[in-house]
């Protein structure tokens, strides 16, 4: 589902590359944790995979069609993200001016899903993430755990092949973090999506199928 080949990235003006010759793959239904020291380039790698940053060399192929996101223009990358990728962030990033159901509907609207189907999918997902009855609530009235549940619902609602999560439990207390992680892993597995989770949390990493460690020398 995700295939990274010979990827290298150097920030402009920097003497040393952030990383070079990175190659790995994540299969459908597989959940991979990406760990490493702060500043080692985990977020940069995630940004490159999402098409938000451009690597110097290499290829990043996503989805059954194995489209190389590196070769696409900004509009093409946006379209690929809208179809194939779901995101979960540490800071939740829920649009504060939209209701819970409107937030979850954003990927469906970008994909042109009809109103009826949209409503059904949102209702089902809200039930799956434990937020039934929250559809019309405003983000400001939700707790951190509830916000991250909304984010997980939004990441899955358009049935993407790849989930990218950046410290999804970083802003949560240990108990809530555990609940959210369970929910995320269960839902990703239920959808048979591939997932790459950037984390500093050892317990979280341990619950994934595989752990990739990014070091100055490359991936281990």
């Amino acid at each position, binding site marked *: 589902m995700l295939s990274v080949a010979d990827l290298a990235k150097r920030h402009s003006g920097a003497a040393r590359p952030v990383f070079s010759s990175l190659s790995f793959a994540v299969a459908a239904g597989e959940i991979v944790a990406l760990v490493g020291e702060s500043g080692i380039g985990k977020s940069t790698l995630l940004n490159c995979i999402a098409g938000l940053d451009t690597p110097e060399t290499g290829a990043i192929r996503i989805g059954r069609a194995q489209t190389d996101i590196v070769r696409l223009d900004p509009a093409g990358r946006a379209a690929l993200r809208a179809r194939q990728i779901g995101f979960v962030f540490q800071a939740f990033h829920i649009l504060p001016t939209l209701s819970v159901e409107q937030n979850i509907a*954003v990927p469906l609207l970008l994909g042109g899903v009809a109103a009826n189907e949209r409503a059904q999918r949102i209702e089902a997902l809200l039930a799956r993430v434990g937020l039934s009855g929250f559809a019309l609530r405003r983000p400001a009235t939700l707790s951190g755990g509830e916000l991250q549940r909304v984010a997980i619902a939004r990441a899955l609602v358009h049935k993407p092949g790849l989930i990218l999560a950046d410290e999804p439990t970083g802003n949560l207390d240990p108990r809530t973090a555990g609940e959210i992680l369970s929910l995320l892993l269960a839902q990703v597995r239920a959808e048979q999506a591939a997932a790459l989770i950037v984390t500093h949390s050892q317990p979280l990493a341990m619950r994934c199928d595989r752990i990739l460690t990014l070091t100055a020398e490359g991936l281990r």
Partner: protein
Amino acid sequence: MNTLAAWLIAAQFARRRTTSLLSLLAIALGVALGYAIHLINDTALADFRQAMRSVQGEPDAIVAPRDTTGSVGLALVEELTRDPAVLVVAPVIEVRVRVDQHALPVRLIGLDVFSAPAVMPALLPEGREAQASRAILDGGVYASPALLAKLALAPGDHLSLWRGNSRWPAVLAGQLPGSRPGDLLLVADIAWVQAHFGPPAGVGEARIRLAPGVDATRWRQALAERLPSDLLIRSDDDDSARVSNLSRAYRVNLNVLALVALLTGAFLVFANQLTAVAQRASQFALLGVLGLSPRRLMLQILGEALAIGLPGALLGLALGHALATAFTQTLGGDLGGGYFSGSAPTIIARPLPALGFLALGCAASLAGAAYPAWLNRQQDLAQALKSGFAEETASSSARHLWLPTVLGVLAYGLAQLPPVGDLPLAGYASIALLLVMGITAAPWLTQRVFAAGAELPLAAHQRIALQNVAQAPLLAQVAASGLIVSFALTISMVTMVSSFRLAVDRWLDEVLPAPLYLRGKATPLPDELLAALRQPDSPFARFEQTMHAALALDVQRPNVALIVREIDRDQPEARLPFTGAVSQPPPTQPVVWISEATQELYRLHSGQRVRLPLLGREIEVFIGGVWRDYVRQFGAIVISRSDYERLGGRFAASDLALWPQAGHSATAAAWLAPLAARFGCEVADAGEIRQLSLSIFDQSFAVTHALEAAAMLIGLFGLAVTLAANVWLRARELATLGALGFDRHMLSQAVILEGVLIALVGLLIGLACGIAIGAVLTYVINPQAFHWRMTLSVPWPSALAGAALTLAAATVASRYAARQATRLPLAQILADAQ
């Protein structure tokens, strides 16, 4: 996608209700003013053309004398009648007369009852054709219903018509049912009018209807080539162009004022959208990360602007229509400009111009959002998602001086260009460039002011705040730009109006040398009145007479006033305010003195010899000098009574300047009043005329003061909104400062200091730009549009008082922003930033 756009737009409106509504109202105001001015002018012009046609009909050609005191010879009328290409020739004589003791001058039109029906059906009397013809041939006069109502007359009444020394009885035979409402007209037989009021050997005009199939343009060209030089031939199109030219510059000026209102609306949208973009940078970035393409993101921001602009423009159209209706009822069709007096037409909207103004309102709104949309597109998605709006992406080259310097040079160059079609289009472009120059100079000056401020012995928190703004002056530029634009426009208008008022005040001193004035309202003064003034018991030591006529030097332009005055041809500077040296005329040659407008419109100059169509022939005259005239923007020519009479002209004064004998100043006016009333004349002393002139001047600029006030309010509002937004954008920085030991009072002080300094930058640039724009208005726009020249005079006390007041208001606006800063949930912001 559309649903998402609609949700986001609705959410944006809900969140920024006040600023969105104000932006919408500002766009509505701009569109309303522009549309109202268009509607009024369009309707007034159509109405005026219609009125002109109802009186003169729709002839294919009109032959008329170039000098309004002249006539078209009867021989030529005969010749035209015999031309096989001509279907009918309708001769006309028009004079202004008084009816009984009424002071109101009335148009008396003498027409030929046999030819008039084919050309001027609206002037036909009521009743059966034969009966009406007989009545008119018997010396009966017909009046328009409006005149009957105005003077309380009825058919069958016996009237006394008089003009100068001529006074004739007439019988009111009936009405003119075809005349338009408001037309004050009398119609009589042309022979009767000629016999009583002249001209003796000709007619005023010959209105011609050509035979079917005749090429009117070619026929007119052929006739023009063989017409004597004192006559002209004009068409319906020439008359329409002349009517349009009457108010063209005034109209364009009002439209530019409306555009200023629209510009302030666009600026509000700009401030609104830029702060919205900056506040929502991470939200827009999220949408981009989730898959909204960069193009759609940009369209979203433009769509939000359109959601303000479209309803604003629609509201503006409705408001404009209402304003136009209200204005025409209160000020008339010329908005008080004095071009189409008495006209109060019914406003009729047409779809195409309405769509044009709708598009203009939307375009202003979109233009206001274009830069914020572009700026948002430059944001790095990942960075913006993490840290919000990043100013570093704005080009640092914007802080250099090259752009404002280039704009300034371009603005100066444009100000040197001549008018285009009598309109100062390059001057208007120069003003726009000066405004942009001011805005682009803001980052440079902001950096300098804030960097210098940070070196002052201030408290640490204030120095840090100043250093921050010096490093990232983009939002300071946005905040200052509102003040730059509004203060520059205000200062420029105040400077221009002050310069103009001072010039008019001094000019009135020169053109009103006598203590008392008497006006005959375009009709000659009777000898009886003049004789009374010459009697030994008259309290007047002397008086000077003036006669008014007009010359058609260009058929498509309004006539040039010909003023015949009792003036010493060797010492004209005693009576006329010359702009330069007076040239001594050759002793035997007639001399004229032309106004600045005549000089510029007809490219004449002092010392030149020109041929003028005077007294039925072309006469070579010497131009002795150019004088200043703030009244007749289409030109005036003064000739001395001695020269005029030497050339064979018959002097018939209509105005007098009177000097009472020593010690009789108080009684002279009282002595003159009943005499003037008896002959329907007006009397005013120089003080009254001065006061009336200045009060008309002040009234005509009242609308600009209202716009200045609106612009300043919008500028201050923009400052408050942008400063408050700045607080939100710098929330993390402020929270960090708070964590480092800044208490809320210190944060508040820092924000207020920033606001005041930003306002100071805006006011400094606004003042400089305002004076520069004032100079363009004074030296380019006024001379090119209206041919009014004056010297620039900056009203420093008013300008500095305005700046101080604005700075005080800006301090209040900064306090509003500071209050936002003290309300920030600092702990939450720091926690979120982890």
